[in-house]
């Protein structure tokens, strides 16, 4: 069944989009990630213009993170104060990102920049995760007890000034890295159409030493607002949010996420992480290939005077 997307201005198949949303939702439920980093490249592979894929991806991320944050809120595994500070940074980063987005679009380098960012970030995160999970798998196979991270260990981040106490996270830390992290994620959110959970979660755990149980809820809480802000600004400045496209992805996504979460409970953590790492690397590789393969048309047209 075909449907015409009013903003993307192309005809697409409803079932392909629902299935795409469901598949990514399933994976995001399984791995506890927003799925924006999969949705946006998939949309680009499906010939949706990158500018629209990014803005619509941000819109779709709201639905999955809202759904996820609700369940963390009920369980009390959400640090509002930490989320709020991250969010303050996120708004600044997102605003800068939107400005860069519009600038790159005017220069005709937006598509390239989006692809490069994806290749670099997904390649790095996927590579690190794969190495870490394979080591963990090998360790558990040889029967050795997994090495536990020593808590209370401090790094340079904990020596920065402007400290603030976050009770729910049992944390006393400078606001500078928290704001900086929020800003970085906000910037990526507006340029890549991702929630940024795949960077936020490891950063909170390893850099700020936030207890793992509150990390996902807090990250999701911050992502809801950063993506909402990104969606709003993209809608007003670039008019690139396609609600029809976003709704189809969300509808598939929220359904898939709940089943994915259930399936995720049956797999072991390190197996799960190894699978996710391979998936992330595959997406990065596919995008990298497109950068190097000679395009069928060297010339492209675009409307001049686009903001």
């Amino acid at each position, binding site marked *: 069944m075909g449907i*015409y997307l009013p903003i993307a201005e192309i005809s697409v198949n409803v079932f392909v989009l629902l299935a795409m949303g469901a598949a990514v939702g399933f994976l995001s439920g399984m791995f506890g990630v927003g799925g924006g980093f999969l949705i946006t490249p998939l949309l680009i592979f499906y010939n949706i213009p990158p500018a629209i894929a990014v803005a619509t991806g941000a819109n779709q991320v709201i*639905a999955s993170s809202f759904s996820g944050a*609700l369940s963390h809120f009920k369980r009390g595994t959400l640090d509002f104060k930490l989320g709020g500070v991250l969010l303050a940074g996120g708004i600044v980063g997102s605003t800068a990102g939107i400005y860069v987005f519009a600038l790159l679009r005017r220069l005709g380098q937006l598509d390239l920049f989006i692809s*490069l960012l994806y290749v670099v970030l997904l390649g790095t995160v996927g590579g690190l995760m794969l190495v870490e999970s394979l080591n963990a798998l090998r360790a558990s196979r040889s029967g050795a007890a997994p090495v536990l991270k020593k808590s209370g260990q401090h790094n340079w981040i904990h020596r920065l000034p402007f400290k603030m106490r976050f009770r729910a996270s049992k944390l006393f830390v400078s606001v500078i890295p928290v704001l900086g992290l929020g800003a970085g994620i906000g910037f990526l959110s507006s340029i890549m159409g991702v929630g940024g959970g795949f960077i936020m979660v490891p950063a909170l755990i390893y850099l700020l030493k936030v207890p793992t149980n509150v990390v996902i809820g807090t990250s999701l809480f911050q992502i809801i607002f950063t993506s909402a802000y990104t969606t709003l600004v993209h*809608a007003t400045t670039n*008019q690139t949010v396609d*609600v029809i496209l*976003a709704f189809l992805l969300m*509808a598939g996504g929220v359904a898939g996420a709940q089943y994915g979460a259930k399936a995720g409970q049956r797999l072991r953590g390190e197996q799960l992480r190894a699978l996710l790492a391979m998936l992330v690397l595959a997406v990065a590789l596919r995008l990298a290939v497109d950068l190097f393969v000679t395009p069928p048309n060297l010339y492209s047209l675009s409307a*001049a005077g686009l903001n």
Partner: protein
Amino acid sequence: MAGLRAFAAAASLSMLFVLSPATAQTPPTESIQIGLSTDAISITAGFSGADLTIFGSLENPDPLIARQGRYDVVVVLEGPPRPVVVRRKDRVLGVWINLDSETFENVPVSYSVATTRPLQDIAEPAKYKQLSLGAQNLYLKPADETDSPATIQEFTAALRERKAATGLYSENVGGVQFLSQNLFRATVRLAPNVPVGTHKARAFLFKSGMFVKESSAQLEIRKSGFEQSVFRVAHDYSFLYGVFAVSLAMLTGWLGRIIFRKD
């Protein structure tokens, strides 16, 4: 599939009056008229392209020349003019990057031509350049005229090629047929991605390779339906549209949890 709802049809069938012998001494000048039955057509979102038929008439034709088939008609449907940037990708460290670009002012978004015969058989190429007629001869004005002629020529050619490849610039040889000595019918192609806006239909009359007269009419192409309303709201009330998109996402997330909850 084709959502073309209206047909531009015959309008001006001007009658030929018998000329008095006194005025018959100087041969009457020929002229051309085209008419559209409607000044606006609506296409729906699923529009997959269509043919548009335009009728027209020749006034005061010389019967001898008409019999010899030396009258030629070229009909053009020209989309609204817009500035366009043409970019060229080049390899930098193995990666394909948009490097050079050229901006052109007032490039018709679409340009469909219908002719009685191949353009090169109708008149001299210089004539078309002078009239800025035909996708290959259309004058495309670069925004920066100080660029080298070779560069401008390269990007102009690329612009024409890309427009033709997407079906926006098309040529229908034999698309104009004389139904009688005076009446002709032109069939121009509307691409699936035909732009909305004010299109200009123009008819050019040639007599034995010489340009005689031109006639034009305007046609408004609109999109209709739900998708078009969404598009308009997204552009006219972009902030409210954004608020709606965000609320819809939150509602979907909340409902999804209630309906599919597994914990």
